[in-house]
């Protein structure tokens, strides 16, 4: 039993760290869509923050 506890404690110490995980891939910018409407995700700049429906509360 004591070995089991020691094993578990080592597991916590060894595997409980998220350090060493690879960084997630970053974005790459893409050309904007000049034909897109002002609210379209790829619209060329000049849009504002706006409002998102269905917040996370």
């Amino acid at each position, binding site marked *: 039993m004591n070995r089991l506890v020691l094993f578990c404690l080592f597991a916590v110490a060894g595997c409980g760290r998220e350090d060493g995980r690879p960084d997630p891939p970053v974005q790459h910018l*893409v*050309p904007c869509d000049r034909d897109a409407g002002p609210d379209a995700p790829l619209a060329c700049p000049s849009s504002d923050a706006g409002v998102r*429906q269905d917040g996370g509360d």
Partner: protein
Amino acid sequence: MPAHPRAARALFALLAPFALLVAVEPRAQATADAAPRGIVRDENMAPIAGAAIVVHDARGDTVATTTTDAQGAFTLRAIPFGEYTVEASAPGKADAHQHVVVSSSTTEAIELYCTEAKYTFRVVEKPPEAALPSRATGSVSQLGRAALQALPQGDDRAITDVLATQPGFVLDAFGNVYARGNHANVQYQVDGIPIPDSVGNLFAQALPVRLIQDVEILTGGMPAEFGDRLAAVVNVTSRHGGVTPEGSAQVRYGSFNTVEPGLSYARSLGPVGVFVGGSYLYSQRALDSPAVTPILHDDGQSGRAFLRVDVPASERDRIEVFASYAYNLFQIPIDPTVVPLDPTRPDLVRPVDQYGNASPPFVPHDTDATEREHELFAAASWVHAFSERAQLQIAPYYKLSYGALGSDPAHALGALADPGSTASDVTRRADHAGGVANVSTRVGNHTIKTGAQVDYLDGRTDFAEYVRDDASPAGGIDPAQTGRGSDHTRALLSGMYLQDRWERGRFSLNAGVRLDEQHVALASGGSDDQVGVSPRLGVSYAFRKELVLHAFAGVNWQPPSPLDAANAARILGVLPSTASVPYDIKAQTDAYGELGLDGRPWKALRLGAVGWGRYAWNQLDDTAIGETNLIANYNFQRGRAVGVEGRAELVLGHWLSAFGNVSWEIAQGQGIASARYLFTPDQLANQSWQTLDHAQTLTANLGATVREKLASLTVLAAYGSGLRTGPNNDQTVPQHVRVDATLQLAFDKVPLRPRVAIDVINLFDAQYAYRIANGFVGSSWAAPRSVFARLAIPLGEGG
């Protein structure tokens, strides 16, 4: 079915005198407690008069005593719901005992047999069995302290994570849960006292399992005594001090440098019962991150403290004082995958994700945005027993809820921030004062309850919005465009109800009606008043005690949250600053029905199924305003939802207990009907039925605990088919399966009797999102595999 104020006022006038009459009638029973009845018989089925009845709680403390009447019958006075052992003894007879579960929605019949001593056989301990079907007229489940502690994370588990294991609940980011397709609207109730809204969802997070003795969860078919927030009712009985001292000192350590010391202790000081507890948490993953881990700037700390004091003022009077305090300080996480725009290439923008969602904005990595929250709740409850059949509960309360979001605009609007970026500081404070009064009387097979509640809210929201100085190469705040504002909200919510639970043989009926009114004082000087009448009828029929059918039909009236009134939109520039903002948010009125079957085909196995449906007028939903943590309610013209749930419970002796449940649901809304200024013309023009983003089509849970003497292993698996995403809410995020496991060991022969537990959360390291491009921070990803160790030292005999 919109509410009719004239009819409602007439009903108020009819109910009020009756409520007063019952209040002074000396036969009443408080809604916080139950008064189970029983009978003691001998070996010939003859009733035994004068038998002594003693009731013990789970620790073995005596909580009630009485004697049987001439018919051998007894009624227990003022028993908080939970699990008990009832013992009967009579001169010349062998003692008898029965394990009973007392709940607020049903009363378990107690039948004890004290036989002649010569007939007494060797006492053989009865192996555990699956619980008998409930005779409640709605969907109710109950979890005792032992079941709660067996779950991964044990006492450190948040109550929302407990709810997520039950049928009908969907877990979302930041620990939010939704019940049966209803947005938020979970009513937490502690010791019979409903807890008012928070400015966030802090109270749910502030309610640790460490505080809970028993929890009763109602997800449908609520009796009339429950009002206002009716997606689900979470009815908590808090722990209290008794004759047997108990408690524990614990520390948890593990992934993300999480450290959480905690303490709880309960004992009696003379006749006074005292329970105190608290905990402190530090973690480097405090909020659900907006991208796959590792994430930036996600540290957090929180503290919890609570106190309960029970004073038996007299034979018939009990006073309880309950107080809790919670504190949170969170860093607002930063998504490291989002890149800044290139000022030399204005034709380049950030890409959309695989669902077509726009990217969240870039946040400079030196931004130190934080959220700080305080919550204080204090209540006193006086329970007076007029007789064994009658009680009264009066409980005033006060609640302070405070949240402050600091956006660190100097850095958030820095050189790398997008042109035109904004940042907001928002401080919210809500003071609630109110109370409840409940009485009931038992007349024959009828238990008539009535009561009233009132809640006064004084809320204040202060804003400061900052705009980036695009003229400066270094960015920063443009003082000329800085805007400030303040909202002041005052509202009075009141309600009253009358209900009758009638039990006759195999048949139970719960009929009632409640009347609610919300008065909101508007900034313009006027007021908004809305009234709802909610008749409800539930029935159950026990074909035999192992098979119960229930049906429910009724109206649920749910008022909007008046906090964060919609003029926040004006202050934040969503509307021109000169535009007036009408308050047009309506209460939601549901026609709700369900049909369920609950059976125990074998003593080891309990199975249940329920189907439910809802049609809503003025269905409430909410929307985030700008880049803030402000939420504003709005209405759909109509809503509809339907679902089916199945559940199973398996108990094989002491060594194995398991449960499983599966829920299928659809919830939709049609036509945006209020706060229209928050939406685009296209959104307003859409009159089709839209699936709501808090409905998950398929959700399932599976849990099993294996015990061997002083060790136990619990495994919990959760499946979700995915919440909605996409610009039109017409896609779902990927399905996920998460498995948690916990191993608990007790060392009773070692000094200090330590308890050790190892929790592995997300055992197979499933990387899944609750949300993608929806909510405050764009996306919310669940934690990767994380491992925690808990070391607890019991305090006192019962620890």
